[in-house]
């Protein structure tokens, strides 16, 4: 997909499936999702609530309870398969080679312990160092993420910090053992725009310095355009479109992606009227029989034989490096896309 795709991706996910057993029956939260993330690159996973974007990442991190969750497929991290690996092995790798930043730093940091203690613990779990060295490492990390007065901050509790500072602490904790891959789950959603800008800048700097592979989970298309190299759009637990950043924004090829792009207001231009997607995201318990997006799609009459109602479309390569899940032919989709987005598709 990207220029660096000749060498082996750092994270390789193949046909990942996650199934929960609930009172109301089996619920497939993630259905055959595959992607690659290379070192120094960012993959954005976009989707609405219930699209499976967070669950798929928790599965990669080994943070789902395997007793109640059926996880199948393959997750290769730096050449090592994780789905079949033992919990202990995954725990070892988590923090060391891969790490996660959560949306809400207040509920992800322990409220009882000073942040210094929490950071030191994170270091000592993975590195054989004494407390003093671990504390020095913690301080260094806080400085690296732009927290002023790092030495003093080590002795504060999470509630004493502002939202932006807490998010920085989260990032520091995620990076304290130099992981080579980070999953950031809506890392800026709870933050104000000016602080969001700081955090994005920070992630970008860290990536440039350490060559970190980043999986960025977000619903904000602006953040995607800003940070991503590749984009994966999820809907109803499935990947519905996958392409590199510019391809996705300038030559989108799936009705759901069109809907997303037409429904966001912008700060740089006046839009006459938003074109929302009708209806609501589907319930994973009662997915439509045919295409999952069919009930909200306005183009199903373009497909003969009511195929959209009866058959789930496959994820197919419509153009080199560009995958989409839709029954329409590539020509049909390109025409609609040009019609709807006009100049935007002219690269």
């Amino acid at each position, binding site marked *: 997909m990207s220029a660096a795709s000749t060498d082996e991706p750092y994270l390789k996910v193949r046909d990942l499936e996650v199934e929960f057993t609930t009172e109301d029956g089996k619920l497939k939260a993630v259905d055959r999702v595959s992607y690659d993330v290379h070192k120094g690159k960012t993959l954005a996973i976009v989707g*609405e*609530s219930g699209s499976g974007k967070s669950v798929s990442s928790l599965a990669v991190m080994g943070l789902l309870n395997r007793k109640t969750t059926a996880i199948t497929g393959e997750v290769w991290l730096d050449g090592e398969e994780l789905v079949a690996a033992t919990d202990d092995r995954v725990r070892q790798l988590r923090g060391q080679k891969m790490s996660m930043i959560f949306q809400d730093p207040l509920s992800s940091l322990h409220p009882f312990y000073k942040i210094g203690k929490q950071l030191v613990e994170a270091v000592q779990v993975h590195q054989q160092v004494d407390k003093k060295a671990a504390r020095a490492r913690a301080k260094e990390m806080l400085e690296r993420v732009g927290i002023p007065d790092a030495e003093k901050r080590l002795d504060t509790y999470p509630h004493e910090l502002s939202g*932006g500072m807490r998010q920085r602490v989260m990032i520091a904790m995620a990076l304290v053992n130099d992981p080579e891959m980070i999953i950031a789950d809506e890392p800026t959603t709870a933050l104000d*725009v000016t602080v969001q800008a700081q955090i994005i800048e920070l992630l970008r700097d860290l990536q440039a310095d350490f060559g970190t592979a980043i999986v960025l989970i977000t619903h904000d*298309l602006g953040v995607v*355009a800003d940070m991503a190299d590749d984009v994966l759009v999820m809907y109803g637990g499935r990947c519905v479109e996958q392409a590199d950043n510019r391809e996705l924004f300038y030559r989108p090829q799936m009705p759901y992606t069109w809907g997303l792009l037409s429904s*966001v*207001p912008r700060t*740089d*231009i006046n839009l006459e009227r938003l074109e929302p997607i009708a209806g609501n995201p589907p319930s994973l318990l009662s997915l439509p029989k045919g295409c999952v997006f069919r009930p909200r799609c306005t183009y199903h009459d373009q497909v003969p034989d009511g195929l959209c109602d009866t058959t789930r479309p496959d994820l197919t390569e419509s153009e080199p490096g560009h995958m989409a899940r839709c029954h329409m032919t590539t020509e049909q989709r390109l025409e609609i896309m040009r019609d709807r987005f006009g100049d935007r598709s002219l690269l």
Partner: protein
Amino acid sequence: MSEIEEQGAAARPSDAEPSAEGYATSVIDRSGDPLLKVTGLKKHFPITKGVILRRQVGAVKAVDGLDLQVWPGETIGLVGESGCGKSTAGRAMTKLLEPTAGQIVFDGRDISDLSKKQLVPLRKQMQMIFQDPYSSLNPRHTVGTIVGAPFQVQGVKPPGGVKAAVQDIMARVGLNPEHYNRYPNEFSGGQRQRIGIARAVALQPKLIVCDEPVSALDVSVQAQVINLLEDIQDEFGIAYVFVAHDLSVVRHISDRVVVMYLGKVMEIASRDELYSRPLHPYTHALLSAVPIPDPDLEDARERIILQGDLPSPSNPPSGCVFRTRCFKAQDICATEVPALTTRPDGHGVACHFPEVRLVGAAAGPAPDVPTGQEFAEG
């Protein structure tokens, strides 16, 4: 140039100009009296110490001197980061919170000193839509009861009965009228927000304060609700005070926009002025911080990264409240509070060093724009 500007401005004070794309936001007639006129609005929350001998040791100045006029059918966007006082301002101007100081004239009547009881009949005219569609609806009441409540409270008896009226409104906001007897938990987030909107428009008020009405919703659903709010405004001529942190939503829906920071108004202008020719460094920074869903524009976007966080509102900086994070701050900013100076066209800014910064489309072929220098002198 400035003559033309002033003439135009005199004829249509603080009007939104038709934008370059050749359509205008619904033209607001501002020749008459404003629907809502707020002067020197303040809301300070006391900070107390001690349990038995409670004494006030300070105050959080959530809103510290807001002047605002809202004309019928107009949408005013109130934007700013969390803690800037935008929500408090929205509530204080409708007296949902008792203001500490200031005058509020609603529909030609001074309501500043009215008691809660005296305000009840006026509530017919001003309503509120809340952010969280989960906590703002009583889970034990049916949709019918919730949307019918305004009729009960106000003693309004619509011809044809309350139920028919409620079902009418439900259909209008895109809910199935047959769901009259359902409970909020049976609806999705977007549908719940429609219930909240139905309740607010039930009595066809003149003003609705919308407090972050779409920020809890998914992108695709958010657009549905925004369009609904616009349609209802067109149909009933309701004025909105739209409180939100999302600058793109505010651009989309507002005629005029107020930018707040730590309880103070930093800048106020028509939508197009504010987004294409902002004057205040805080507005510059805010706008530059929002990523645009377009990779090429993103590459070209000039970013102003503000340092640090919002200072504590209980202990705001001296002088200009924004100076601690301002990239233009000088000595004078620490000592003198910049006054909000308003140009004849209604573009107001509270800054010692205002300067036009062209953003987005305006950064291309520029129309006649007064420079910061001219502005400062004029």
